[in-house]
């Protein structure tokens, strides 16, 4: 018995998608030696820019089916003369620890020359009842389009990835605007991917003596690379910076200076935020200082999946290595699908990051 079974991809007319899926489910049940389970906990609509992105999404959806079996509607939207084609497939995985196959279904739609209004019109009839509807912007930020906003508003959740957003400020604004009561829960894959870094960093302040210095922190330094695609700061550095200053209760940022090392901001009370671009990765380290009394530093070694944590309180310095269990892209997607509402910490971190970015861009 193979570990994964695909029925193959069958071209189908839009109107016959449900019928063809029913036939494939029947085939799947008849062909499987093990019993097949059809469980669907959500409808996932993925909007992709090209076929490569759609292919990656398809693999990820299949990979997370064990935790989030879904009906996936993968839409590749490209410019051109209006045209639409669709195919369907059922994919089953053998669960190693049970003699059982877990199956999920995928509907692939290639839409040319369609605006969001029309995309929404053929997607919505395919949405399953009574389970959450998740819209995933795969490989792009949120487009500034009222039709897209209307589509997003009928969804329970919207997944995006700040790391792929070309205009971070615009996406920040969209997320903060969409995250109103009654709106979809926005989940940022970049934020989910940063959880291991946040967890490792947080361990610096588990000992009570270190926690006592939190109100006295007066400088925060974030080390990252300099993004090459025109962005001033990496999404990772912005989000982690926004999170830390929010946790510290800092606000009222103003631009201080920019030099060859990076950008320097001042917060209310004369506190210093330094964004240094001297690293090779989008987030290599974070350092906090409390005058001359104490300092706390986390350096992330992603290759070794380890964070070196250094605490200095007075003359006493302690170093420890913490696990930095980085998530694969599939694990990040899996983690993102756990959220049923916007992470309030993310919303606050984003608001702070937005304030920081506003100062940098001016």
């Amino acid at each position, binding site marked *: 018995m193979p570990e994964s079974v695909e029925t193959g991809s069958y071209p189908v007319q839009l109107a016959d998608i449900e019928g063809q899926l029913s036939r494939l489910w029947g085939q799947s049940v008849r062909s499987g030696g093990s019993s097949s389970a059809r469980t669907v906990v959500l409808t996932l609509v993925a909007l992709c820019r090209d076929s490569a992105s759609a292919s990656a999404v398809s693999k990820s959806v299949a990979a997370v*089916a064990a*935790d989030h079996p879904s009906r996936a509607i993968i839409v590749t939207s490209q410019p051109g003369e209006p045209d639409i084609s669709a195919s369907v497939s059922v994919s089953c995985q053998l669960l190693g620890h049970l003699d059982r196959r877990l199956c999920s279904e995928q509907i692939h739609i290639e839409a040319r020359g369609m605006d969001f209004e029309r995309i929404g019109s053929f997607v919505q009839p395919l949405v399953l009842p009574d389970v959450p509807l998740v819209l995933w912007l795969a490989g792009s930020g949120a487009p500034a389009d009222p039709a897209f906003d209307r589509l997003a508003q009928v969804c329970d959740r919207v997944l995006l990835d700040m790391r792929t957003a070309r205009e971070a400020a615009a996406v920040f604004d969209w997320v903060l605007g969409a995250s109103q009561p009654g709106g979809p829960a926005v989940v940022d894959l970049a934020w989910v991917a940063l959880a291991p870094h946040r967890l490792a960093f947080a361990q*610096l302040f588990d000992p009570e003596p270190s926690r006592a210095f939190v109100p006295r922190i007066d400088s925060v330094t974030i080390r990252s690379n300099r993004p090459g695609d025109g962005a001033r700061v990496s999404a990772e550095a912005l989000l982690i910076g926004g999170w830390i200053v929010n946790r510290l209760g800092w606000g009222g940022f103003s631009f201080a200076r920019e030099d060859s090392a990076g950008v320097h901001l001042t917060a209310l009370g004369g506190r210093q935020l330094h964004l240094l671009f001297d690293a090779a990765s989008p987030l290599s380290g974070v350092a906090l200082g409390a005058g001359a009394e104490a300092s706390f530093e986390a350096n992330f070694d992603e290759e070794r999946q380890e964070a070196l944590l250094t605490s200095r309180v007075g003359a*006493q310095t302690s170093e420890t290595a913490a696990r930095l269990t980085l998530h694969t892209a599939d694990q990040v997607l899996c983690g993102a699908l756990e959220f049923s509402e916007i992470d309030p910490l993310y919303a606050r971190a984003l608001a702070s990051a937005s304030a920081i970015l506003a100062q940098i861009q001016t």
Partner: protein
Amino acid sequence: MLNLAENPFREGLTVERAAEPCAVVIFGATGDLTRRKLIPALFSLYLQGLSPAKFAIIGFARRPWSDDYFREHMRSAVLEHSSASASNLGAWETFARSLSYVQSSFGDADGYLRLKERIAEFSAANGVPRNAVFYLATPPSEYAAVIGNLGASGLADEDGGWRRIIIEKPVGTDRASARELNSHVRGVFPESRVYRIDHFLGKETVQNILVFRFANSIFEPLWNTKYVDHVQITVAESVGVEGRGAFFDRAGIVRDLMQNHQLQLLTLTAMEPPSSVDADAVRAEKVKVLQAVRPLSGEDLVKSVVRGQYAAGSSQGAHVPGYLDEPDVAPDSGTETFAAARLMVDNWRWAGVPFYLRVGKRLPKKVTEICLQFKAVPGILFGAGHRREMTPNLLVMRIQPDEGISLRFTCKEPGPSMSLQQVRMEFHYGASFGAPSPEAYERLLLDAAIGEQSLFAREDEVDAAWRIVDPMLAHWAEHGREGLSSYRAGAWGPAESLDLLRRDGRRWRRV
């Protein structure tokens, strides 16, 4: 305002359940439990990032092992017993630095002083409090010595850090010995620092009983004497004593499984909604159920309880010996390998609803489940004249294996005639949640390090459970092999077990 009592950077992280830096001291570190369960569970927690930022694991036992030998031995244990280990040997090297060993007999006061120094060294080296969890993985006969020495050496005192103790089941061998042990524990550790572990409670599906009952509105209104005819709780093992003959022959199935696992399932099934999910609120409701179980005595006990012992038979296609031919079992042993009981919970909710319990070894298959049989509908509409008998609805919560929930109900068969058919609607954890559940010991070790007591038995809970089974044990001890029924290995217990329900016009569910 920042709350300095909490780490502001921990808020909202998926890993909210973070333990403070601490030392985990395992008494009986060279034993099977440490090797098979505890170290693999601690390593798995480490791999998941759930260990404290700074921790030490200190083995304490008689054998003359060095730190390095202890680490090497535990490395092989992880390779053998942990599925997460093979691809994580790099992580093991970092994890293993936290392991050390103190060689001492459990009665040697000097060993405890060296342990105290080891904890102090860990604390000083890392700038953390002297927090410690003491895990009693020794034979129960050593509990008193270890607890006494922890008290005498000052290791139980919360001087510069918290101190907790985890005690493996069984807690006592009867009500009197359990009370004696609990009294001994109480003299050294207050109840708020005592964690009586029954790994069964660490299973996801056991915890899910409360979620299923109290997070869904459709079941609870039916969960009472008005709609439930009776409840069956089955804890069946297909194996025999499996090398534990000497232990099992002293204990028997009631002490081994009914007094703890099975009565836990009964309490979770029968309890009232707690006021919160706090440890004491949940445990208080469980204790109320145990206290409401009608005590068995005299003729009532004889009628309501069946015990059996397996004879030679077949299991999984192989011939297997009878209990009396198992290694380390007395040839004239009167120890029960099967027990069934009819218990009544005398409270408002369950008045008149029997709870049938059966537990045994060398039964046809390994299965643990709770089955609620609902009262049958009046046979007016589809009774006489219609094909197939009217059968009541069954709601089954399967604990292991293939955890899930099923509901049996009646529907019409397709066709021109009014034929009725039983069908099952099933939910399988494995289908909806493909990822395997975490090991019970991982959850429980983490809870103890965090200070969460919900999944550990409280002193009065243990006492109330012994109150139920003590009369059975006393009666059997008095009568030896008299009244001990035999059953063929591979059968569902002795015939008297069937009679127990037949007398009430019921029968065991085929599981």
